[in-house]
């Protein structure tokens, strides 16, 4: 997206001053769209809050307070940032390759399933040093394989991954709920939920309730940057994303690139599921998804498909998600306000980006 102008056949730069000027302009444009978009989005949110009978400024202050106002609040926000970040980073790789993985939800469920199977199997006999890495690996594998189904359908039969991944979401969710209700059911519970992960199968914490999953999420930021911009594979992925035809002519293995991008994003979605089920839910049951598969799409887009941007977007969305809960308890605003704000903000950013491109080009 951003650097299409750099990699393309640029008309030879007239001089260093102009080049610096261009970089300055690009930087301004990169900042312009998200800032204006976020402001307009929050403005539209203010109207909704006002319509609901609350004072927008006070409500937004309550939101900030609820997300960042103290140690407990910050811990809560960090715990939300983790899954948003991992999901958003995985989708960044897919979207960079123009692969539209909308199946994060299903891959999350399959990752959670993999982790729970390994956890239930080993938690009585092994230590956390063995159980946790194997659970995370199972999560990665579960998500990657489920995305692999969509990759196979796309590359072998030409079925759009947009549709197949959506359908696979429903299939995975029902499959996991079936397992939780029957074969894996907790015999001591009346609810349709699986047996519980305990002891070594629960994610170890670093500080307060902040667990190593959050640390993994942060470590992935530089890793994804290196993958996309410092490895031949990353170059291939971005090349396929900007033009499949050109990538093909350049002798790149487009099939491999697309399959990798799809399965890699699936693996990270599965990892998100594994971490969340181990750290938070401790079982397979209804409602463990948290909608990260969809919110992750917005995080990736808002972050302009750049790891650092995705980090900022995840922080922003983490604050929104946690903060809306205080807006809910103080002012009675529906929790879904977070969803609306997230959608409106990303939409405004997309529009601001298009407009900025037109104005800057004409100027």
């Amino acid at each position, binding site marked *: 997206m951003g650097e299409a102008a750099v990699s393309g056949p640029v008309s030879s730069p007239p001089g260093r001053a102009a080049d610096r000027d261009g970089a300055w302009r690009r930087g301004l444009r990169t900042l312009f769209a998200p800032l204006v978009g976020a402001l307009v989005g929050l403005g539209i949110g203010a109207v909704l809050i006002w319509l609901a009978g609350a004072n927008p400024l006070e409500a937004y202050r309550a939101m900030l307070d609820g997300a960042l106002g103290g140690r407990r609040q910050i811990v809560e926000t960090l715990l939300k940032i983790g899954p948003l970040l991992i999901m958003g980073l995985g989708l960044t790789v897919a979207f960079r390759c123009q692969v539209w993985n909308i199946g994060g939800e299903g891959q999350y469920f399959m990752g959670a399933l993999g982790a729970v199977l390994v956890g239930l199997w080993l938690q009585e006999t092994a230590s956390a040093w063995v159980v946790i890495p194997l659970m995370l690996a199972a999560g990665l594998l579960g998500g990657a394989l489920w995305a692999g189904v969509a990759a196979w359908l796309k590359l072998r039969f030409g079925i759009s991954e947009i549709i197949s991944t959506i359908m*696979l979401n429903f299939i995975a969710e029902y499959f996991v709920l079936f397992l939780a209700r029957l074969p894996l059911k907790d015999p001591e519970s009346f609810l349709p939920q699986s047996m519980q992960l305990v002891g070594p199968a629960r994610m170890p914490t670093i500080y307060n309730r902040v667990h190593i999953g959050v640390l993994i999420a942060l470590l992935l930021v530089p890793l994804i940057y290196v993958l996309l911009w410092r490895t031949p594979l990353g170059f291939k992925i971005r090349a396929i994303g900007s033009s499949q035809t050109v990538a093909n002519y350049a002798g790149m293995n487009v099939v491999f690139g697309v399959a990798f991008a799809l399965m890699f994003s699936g693996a990270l979605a599965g990892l998100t599921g594994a971490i969340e089920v181990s750290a938070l839910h401790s079982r397979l049951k209804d409602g463990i998804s948290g909608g990260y598969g969809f919110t992750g799409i917005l995080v990736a887009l808002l972050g302009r498909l750049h790891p650092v941007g995705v980090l900022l977007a995840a922080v922003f969305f983490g604050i929104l998600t946690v903060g809306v809960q205080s807006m809910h308890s103080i002012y009675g605003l529906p929790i879904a306000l977070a969803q609306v704000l997230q959608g409106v903000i990303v*939409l405004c950013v997309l529009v601001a980006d298009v407009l900025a491109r037109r104005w800057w080009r004409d100027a």
Partner: protein
Amino acid sequence: MSELQQVLTTTFVVGLFAAGMRLAIPIFLAALGEIITERGGVLNLGLEGIMLVGAFGGFAVAFYAQEALPAGAQWLAPWLGLAAGAAAGMVMGLLMAVLAVTLQTDQVIAGIMLVVLGTGVTTYFYRQWFGSLTARVESLPPVPIPVLADIPVLGPIFFQHDLMTYLSLAILLAGWYFLFRTTWGLNLRAAGELPAAADTSGVSVSAVRYAAVLIGAALTGLGGAVLTVAQLGIFSEGITAGRGWIAVALVIFANWRPGPAFAGAFLFGLATALQFRIQALNIPSLPYELLLMLPYVLTILALLVNSGASQAPAALGKPYVKE
């Protein structure tokens, strides 16, 4: 074996087909709308969101109309709801058209944004306006067609439905006629196949594409309203449950043709009806989750069957930039 015999009685099969017909209508309307939109060259992946907005808008209007209207005019409430569903769909369609045609943003991203927005907005306002109370509206009563309704087997399947179902069949015919037998339809298809040629012959590609997106979104919103207002009588969060996406898949399955789209929707209606009925039989060896998967598995299978044969409009998803 006894279970199977229980399943295969005539009453059961006739009931199944009649229910399948009803359940087909929302998906069919959305698919027909998307055929019109895509024939005009715009890929609108936002159907799920548009359908949700139509389902909620229609439901809300029908609910408040029911409260406001005098006893004698109660019959009007569901029809106001259906009209509101189509109108709400068009509002979403307008957003899509601005994004796709005027701003020329990536149509895949624009469509996904519509789904996100539709989901968020309907959940927000449902909670805001209806809270936790389970609001209901009167669904449409069946209107058996005289004489035809009494034909054995075919009567109950085709001629004992509500007016909206008959109306949808009329919309199918009108849609086909519009696309393939009118100048408007020709211009629309030209904008989707060869926009430059359409432009040269004096057709405004932008105007045609706006119309294509708006008509498509109106039908999709209507489909959502049929689900909540005419059939279920309730709304709940995410009530469309992927029907919008199934409609997108149906368009490919039907090769962008209204007739096959109806046949495909009927197939989905049957699968859904069958799943309800098998669930009701309560066979312990058959977990209901596996039945609930059926429509989604069927969608993938439908695309598998049709893979390779598809003939998408040539300019589908490509913004038209005037030379």
